[in-house]
């Protein structure tokens, strides 16, 4: 029981999209008896258990609910039904640099972003040199990051996100961080985490990539769980589904 990293039980997420954005549109609709909400099921009845140290690849087409699932695991949004249990600190590599502010310097942003991710100031002081080194931005830390190139920006964001070994690592698509050489460095870091016992969840369209890094697979189609289990079978199911679609 103590080995469970993530457990989803009957996990369902419905979005109710509001058609009207302002009172002016909303009030007449409300009294006129029109629908004010459109229900939309992003995920329905997912059931899976992921143990600590395992790595899960989530496969699915666009709009199959992959990102929604990541968001629920990250705690950004709540499930409408069912339950999700997440044990441990989650490092979301979803959209890197979400908390960065262009007017602040690299150093200020590192500390700010660290505290958003729940890293204490004291720990950050210890991690800081390592972050700068990993981002390869030694000379630029005291400049406002609006002067950074987009590659530098991503490198810094990635370095902060992976500064501490997380219990659970969420990776959306594959990281387009910097050039090939730097990408390799990022992937090496992620493999290190795996060795240290982190649980990894990766979202992708690309079965080959998922096969390389994951041992479990989850296939989603229009929010429904088509398959959960060994990665080999999962990619087979996914490819078959894609073949049928085309």
């Amino acid at each position: 029981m103590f080995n469970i990293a993530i457990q989803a039980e009957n996990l369902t997420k419905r979005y109710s999209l509001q058609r009207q954005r302002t009172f002016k549109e909303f009030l007449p609709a409300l009294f006129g008896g029109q629908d004010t909400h459109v229900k939309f099921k992003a995920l329905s009845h997912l059931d899976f258990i992921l143990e600590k140290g395992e790595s899960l690849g989530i496969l699915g087409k666009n709009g199959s609910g992959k990102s929604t699932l990541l968001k629920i695991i990250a705690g950004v949004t709540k499930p409408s039904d069912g339950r999700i249990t997440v044990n441990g600190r989650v490092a979301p590599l979803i959209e890197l640099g979400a908390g960065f502010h262009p007017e602040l310097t690299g150093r200020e942003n590192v500390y700010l972003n660290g505290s958003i991710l729940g890293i204490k100031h004291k720990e950050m002081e210890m991690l800081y040199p390592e972050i700068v080194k990993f981002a390869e931005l030694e000379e630029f830390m005291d400049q406002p990051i609006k002067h950074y190139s987009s590659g530098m920006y991503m490198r810094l964001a990635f370095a902060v996100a992976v500064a501490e070994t997380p219990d659970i690592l969420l990776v959306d698509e594959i990281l387009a961080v910097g050039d090939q050489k730097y990408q390799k460095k990022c992937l090496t870091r992620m493999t290190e985490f795996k060795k240290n016992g982190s649980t990894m969840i990766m979202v992708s369209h690309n079965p080959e990539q998922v096969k390389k890094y994951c041992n479990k697979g989850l296939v989603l189609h229009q929010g429904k769980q088509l398959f959960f289990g060994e990665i080999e079978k999962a990619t087979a199911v996914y490819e078959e589904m894609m073949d049928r679609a085309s």
Partner: protein
Amino acid sequence: MKKVRKVVANIKLFLDYRELLWNLANREITQRYKQSVLGYAWVILNPLFQLIVMSFVFDIVLRIPSLGVPFILFLSAALLPWNLFTQSLVSSSNVLVSNSNLITKIYFPREILVYSTIIAKMVDFFFSCLVLVFFLFIFKIPVTVYYLWLPVIFVVQLFFMTGISLVVSALNLFYRDIQYLLNLVLLLWMYITPIMYPIEIIPEKYRFIMSLNPMAVIVNAYRQVLLSGKNPNLYSLGVAALVSFIVFSFGFILFKKLEGEFADYV
């Protein structure tokens, strides 16, 4: 018992994220004046010009009485706390929307965003109070033991302000009309609060209306303590404190109820 545990859990959560709170407040303060020449001086210049112009209009043109103290002093004792109130509300109404990138990507207790913007406005407020201190000094108003009431009144204001800010910030996420409505409400609210005039010029039989308005009680209490050198009206202040606490609790509960849906709507 369950409720007590819930309150304790929320306080603990708040303490866990206090570093984020400071960092966000700091970000707001440092970024704001980064590309301006006078920088943080605007925090003082703004209310100063506002006070000068309003004093001219209400003192020299309209001849509003000011309880025997110079009008500009009389005005600043009320206007500066009122500015804190309006600025906190206006920036809170926007704080969730403008941080949508954080809300949709990373989990942390969302009320931290509201608190941080209020802290940033509080820092502005304390700097702007230098203007008030300056006036107190040049008009030779004696410092009295009643000044000890100031932190008490401030805490009452803080609870009231934060409660409304939580409501406004959450609702504005769902309906952007709230921010426009807020501007209107604040403008009208300013007129029914004794800022530009003393509460004493309101006819006795209408004055009870003011005791229903916590901001009127708060602003008047600041004035009594600072300028008249006496205790605030303890009965009104007690009622205002109670109302503030209820407003805060209501705001917090509502905010927490809606919090789970922020990321879906923003």
